[in-house]
């Protein structure tokens, strides 16, 4: 299984990943000039904290969010192993938000659903990896990622 890895030496904190994630994944229009003015505001799935792209889903093998979810909204894709939110059934109880050890799940108050990165599971490449101007974001095998970033 491939996960997103951040080379913190290369990350300049330019927020492009966050911006294009907000546009491509979170917005309705998928056109930046329109997405910017959308209401409710699109909620990006990735966040840049300071000069580090720290907040990303690890798609934990034993995911506490899946265990905590009371109605099976938080699911794992059986083929890819990626953890995702089935938004139509989310009841906004925020249990997942509370139990996530990395704090990557966001409560979207306007949409009343939990939002998290699903590593763009339906796309060929995650958009953040695609747009990163310094190649700080990479798609690597989970084992390799664990070796580099234990």
């Amino acid at each position, binding site marked *: 299984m491939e996960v997103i890895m951040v080379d913190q030496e290369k990350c300049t904190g*330019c*927020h*492009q990943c*966050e*911006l*294009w994630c*907000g*546009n491509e994944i*979170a917005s309705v229009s998928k*056109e*930046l*000039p*329109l*997405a*910017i*003015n959308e209401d409710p*505001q*699109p*909620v*990006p799935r990735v966040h840049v904290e300071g000069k580090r792209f720290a907040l990303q889903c690890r798609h934990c093998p034993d995911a506490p969010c899946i265990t905590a979810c009371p109605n099976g909204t938080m699911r794992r894709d059986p083929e890819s192993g990626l953890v995702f939110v089935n938004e139509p059934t989310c009841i906004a109880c925020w249990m997942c938000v509370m139990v996530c050890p990395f704090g990557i799940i966001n409560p979207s108050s306007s949409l009343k659903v939990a939002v998290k990165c699903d590593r763009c599971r339906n796309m060929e490449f995650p958009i953040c990896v*695609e*747009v990163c*101007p310094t190649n700080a974001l990479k798609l690597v095998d989970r084992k390799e990622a664990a070796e580099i970033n234990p």
Partner: protein
Amino acid sequence: MEFIQKKTNDRAAEPFLLKAAEKGISLVWDRYEGQLPECGFCESGLSCRDCLQGPCISHPFRGDQSKVGVCGKNKDILGVHSLLRLVVKGTMAYLDQVIDFAKDIEAGEVSPANKAQTDGVIRHIQGLFETVGPEVMEAFPEALTNRWEATGIYPEGIARDLFKASQKLEGGITGVNETLLWTFKCSLLGCVSQMLQGKLKSSVFGNAAPTELEVNLGILQKEVPTILLYGHFSPVLKQKIAEVGEKKNVSIMGVCTDPLLPPYIFAPVTSYGSQEIPLMTGAVDLIVSGDQYVNPSLQEVAREWSVTIVPAEVLERGQDLGRFAEQIIDQAKKAFDARSGISKDIPDVKESAVFGFSVDTVDMKKIVDAINGNKIKGIALLAGSNNVKFTQDHEIVSMAQEFLKNDVLCISEGEASIALAKYGFLNPQFEMECGKGLSGLLSSLGEDIPSILDFSYAQNGGVTEFLLGLTSVEKKEPKEYPIVAVFPEANRSMDVTKAMWTVAMGVSTFFWPFLPVTGSPKTMEALTAFCKETFGSRFHVITRKMDARTKSTMVIKSLKGEDELHLDDNPWS
């Protein structure tokens, strides 16, 4: 990032793309792909680098966080400042051109065709720092100048317009609408500079006359040394080079430079988007390069094909332009001999074109009558250069075709004319499909009239000259006629400045690609609603992706006064 789009419509340039790929040379299209995705904050006008506490961004997707810059500029101020920054730069470009030209005339480098008129224009240019002479402003309809005075945007010279406007970027508490008015004020100074430059050109080199010439790569010659003049630099130096070149049998042509400088012609070899291609033919021995409209990438291509580059805008150019021109010609001859081993591959693609119509050679009354008699739907002023974000020439050519079919008279200028000339729009022998009313009007204007009239002679000041000529017929304002300005593939800051002053003159303007103001709803609203209220025209910044035909349909509908219907899905209109 993967990006698929046909690169150019120019069949002369296209084969060279493969050649460049084989040689491993990057052209403008490759570099654009390497830049993708371009910074979304900058593209939306949500970033600022005006001080050293930043750079700052206003994050559109972060709840209440990171919304304002360190100094407190919010998204609306950031947006309108992005526009102002472009217009300040564009206005300076116009001023640079006119001052450059005037300096060489003052130095007595040429003897003007009309000495008294030249002295008068030079005096206006000299006074431009502190004031714009009332005689210059008399060219505009009184209702227009009164409106400019009432809104505070009447041009008052470099110090009051350009310097003051540029200081808005430094700080202060000016709001969006007021900043936008400063932007208009600044752009009108650009308009005046361009008018003065056109007048100076006519006084020094004589009035415009329609001139037939040939365009595109096929005009390059194998047997004689060839010099290409790139971009803008002093017309006097250009003339000197042509003078010496003629004596010594050196062919002089141009790229992104004014083609008409009587008695000399600098035939356009290609248009802005494919400016690197002429060097790849091997038939160019030397280029003289200005700054405006010249890609720095030329250096690399020139190295590959052993082309000498002589920069015209250098600190140590020397006072004697004649000697400088002699040196350039000698260098070109030497380069021609040294380059005899380099193979020359000149595509057999060229097109005749008539450039240089003016209000003196076109009967403006007939045009006004055609509008009043509903023979034509309106007038589209086509301007702007190529932009790599679009297939080269595709947008402008497709839109022009649609306009002609639908009885819209097209007037073009500058780089837009050169792009259109490559496809025969400026060739009187080439029969374009025109609506019945338009055909009637064009044939009534005289013999040998092409489908599109180029008004570039006044140093690309054709749009303004045409508008003023048209309005003087019935002493009306431009906004009382169905006229739009269209920039299908705009590129440089000069295009933005020009678009701004056309709006201030009451002509609605359609501008592609969208300006970096989309992150600011207030600026977007001001460019439409506020401008409509103030000038009776709109600055259309269209963000929706659409093909060229849809764009032209939208413009034609706007000529009929139906524009609101078609932009209502934008949140700001």
